[in-house]
């Protein structure tokens, strides 16, 4: 086979653009996770009572757990469509490193499913009576943390994409790996409520982001090769 003339950079951009265009054609793909996210957060006050102090206390945890679940629910769409129509095999066969293509796909996926969560988070902060300063930190932790979730999740999806019913299995594989992000993100928001600086927590989430960015695409690429074999 002749090596493709397409440079790695343009392949990366084409893939990113393609996934975004596909998502724009099917709006429900990014609207439904937002609705899910808001709905889960709205269930908690109903379940625990309307005491504003209690709600304020659990707000960071509730919002983050809801974000975690929303991210988990959307993960399956990361490779599912491409796996079913055979495009995924073409990526693996292409002359470009699969791990770089994986990064393009994860970025597109995060723009579609992660970014909207960040945009509606301030609204949820108001609903759950978080102070304004803490809401800012909440947005920051989501901005740093949700890409980590997408990257870690991509490994899990790549491992389970070949299975017909991989959904519950995926959550079993991925949720334990989400624990560190959850801990540091909610801790940052909780600390911000008391007015103490949270640069340490944010730096650690940032470090996790870079670590995940360096390692997760490699593991995902290897997993895709296994799943397609």
């Amino acid at each position, binding site marked *: 086979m002749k090596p493709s003339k397409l440079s790695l950079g343009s392949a990366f951009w084409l893939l990113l653009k393609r996934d975004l265009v596909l998502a724009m054609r099917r709006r429900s793909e990014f609207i439904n996770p937002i609705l899910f996210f808001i709905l889960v957060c709205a269930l908690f006050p109903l379940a625990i009572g309307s005491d504003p102090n209690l709600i304020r206390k659990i707000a960071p945890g509730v919002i983050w757990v809801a974000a975690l679940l929303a991210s988990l629910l959307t993960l399956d769409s990361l490779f599912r469509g491409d796996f079913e129509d055979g495009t995924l095999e073409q990526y693996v066969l292409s002359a470009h490193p699969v791990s770089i293509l994986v990064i393009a796909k994860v970025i597109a996926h995060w723009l579609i499913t992660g970014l909207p969560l960040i945009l509606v988070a301030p609204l949820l902060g108001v609903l759950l009576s978080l102070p304004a300063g803490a809401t800012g930190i909440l947005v920051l932790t989501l901005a740093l943390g949700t890409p980590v979730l997408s990257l870690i999740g991509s490994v899990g999806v790549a491992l389970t994409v070949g299975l017909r019913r991989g959904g519950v299995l995926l959550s079993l*594989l991925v949720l*334990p790996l989400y624990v560190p992000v959850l801990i*540091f993100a909610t801790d940052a928001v909780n600390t911000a409520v008391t007015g103490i600086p949270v640069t340490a927590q944010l730096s650690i989430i940032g470090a996790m982001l870079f670590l995940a960015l360096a390692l997760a695409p490699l593991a995902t690429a290897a997993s895709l090769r296994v799943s397609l074999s």
Partner: protein
Amino acid sequence: MRFYHRLASPRHFYRIAGQWIPWLAGIFFVLLVWGLYESLFVAPTDYQQGESYRIIFIHVPAAWMSMFIYFIMAVAGAINLVWRMKMAEVVLVASAPIGAAFTFLALVTGSLWGKPMWGTWWVWDARLTSELFLLFLYLGIIALYGAIEDKRTAGRAVSILALVGVVNLPIIHFSVEWWNTLHQGSTVSLMGGAKMDPRMLRPLLVMSFAFKFYYGWVLFLRARNEVLERERNTSWVRELVEGKAT
């Protein structure tokens, strides 16, 4: 080197493991009896915790094993991914339920000990929490292996998962520790910080070696079964089965 190559072939592994099994089992039982005797009769009663501290002779070695086996699985996973060695895959897969069992044992004995000592079955202590997530990592590996039908594919998939888990394990442990110290304070510390009496340390070490031999024994039993199942269409397995049947 030749020994290594022979061990890498399922047929020779099956034979060699079969020779080792009685020895491993024998050493395990000797160590177990010795360790239990020392821990139940020789080790002195703790001045603070009374007799119930003796559960650590099961608890601590089990917790050690839970981490040791995960480490072995990650190494086996790496070997499998790099050299595509069938036997590494078998070792990984056969180890997972044993590791999960030790993790479960550590959690259960810990909580049995926690009830009289702390007055509660469970606290969200850093060690307990990270041990719980270790159990989930084990169960994830077992579930993924069970879900993929083609066992060679499944073996490679769990190899990747084991490696991803071993990178994450220190991060999970570190983050849980951070979380715990920030919010709960050090209300409890295992072992009470006191130095150990040598009469307590010896049974602990004997028990931990007993558990290692138990692992080796059960690993070889399980690995032999796994080999037979995977190689059931080869001539040597057929000869083995038919030879024994007649």
